[in-house]
């Protein structure tokens, strides 16, 4: 698996977490597994790094959490709030613009 360029990846964990948690209620370990699955292992978050992002999103009101007892273990489940969904929409639009721009630039370079 390739190491992702940290500065270029800035904002990606937030986008991925919001996308996953917009439809589902998950805890940290599940989130990391789903990110791997959803990105075909192209993006691998440092597993412990997911927690400061989750806590920061929760502090910003984009996520909410609740404790649930599952198989005798208490886990903290996260889900996106309404504010989180609107933040996801704006982040997605931003990343699509960047993606389109890169596609365009790559295509021009190939045809040039």
């Amino acid at each position, binding site marked *: 698996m390739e190491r992702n360029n940290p500065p270029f990846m800035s904002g990606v964990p937030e986008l991925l977490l919001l996308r996953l948690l917009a439809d589902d209620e998950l805890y940290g*370990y599940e989130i*990391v597994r789903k990110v791997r699955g959803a990105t075909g292992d192209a993006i691998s978050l440092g*597993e*412990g790094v997911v*927690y*400061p992002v989750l806590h920061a999103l929760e502090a910003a009101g984009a996520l909410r959490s609740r404790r649930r007892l599952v198989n005798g273990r208490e886990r*903290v489940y996260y889900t996106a709030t309404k504010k989180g969904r609107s933040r996801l929409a704006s982040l997605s639009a931003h990343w699509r613009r960047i993606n389109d721009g890169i596609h365009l630039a790559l295509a021009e370079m190939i045809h040039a």
Partner: protein
Amino acid sequence: MHESDFNSLKDALLRGGVAPRHVRRTIAELRDHHTDLFAEAFARGCSVENAEREASMRLGDHDSLAAQILARPELRSWAHRWPWLVYCVTPTVVFIFVFAALLLLLGRSGAGHTDYSSYANRWGSPESLWSLPGAIRLFRVVGLPLLLAGGCCFLAGRRRTAPRWPIVGVILASIIGAAFQFDVCWPYGANAHGALCLRTNLFPPFIGITGTILHAAAISVATLGPYLWWRRGVTRALS
């Protein structure tokens, strides 16, 4: 990551100013995550040592985890952002409010506008500690300054704040606690008026300042001593 690594990470985060509730939760979640990673690797057939190594590697090392969490300013505590507010302003404001409440309580009990013997019959002899005025006096002289100074130490210990702030807070709380006092002037004789008298010796002519200094020093030593001793122990245990 071993238990000692989690403890060391917890200490690093607290010293970095991350709010204790975020630290507690982060450590608990990381510990849980580590358990899941270990179980996953073990179920795949790894030995205990290999499963432990893989779980620790995937979770991230102490320094990178600490750096990622400390890079989030929104997780910092208010005590880290405004230590002067917590260790200097808050004890002063709390002292003023509690001091005023004690004075009000004493006034409402009739001290100063009831003659001494009627008051003593109802609430007990004001000189005795087992009376309302005695208990209020004891709390004002010992309890309140100790609570304020001890509160500064407790907060600083919980948040691993740099020691200069609790030291300033404790000295301030001790001086204020020792220097501001009130007394009851009892009315004697018919139509006489008593009063509740406020006094401080922080200003000239500094009557009784030696007693105040000793009082403040005793409170400071009683609270800062155990705190600094505990802090030294924690620092030694982690190094």
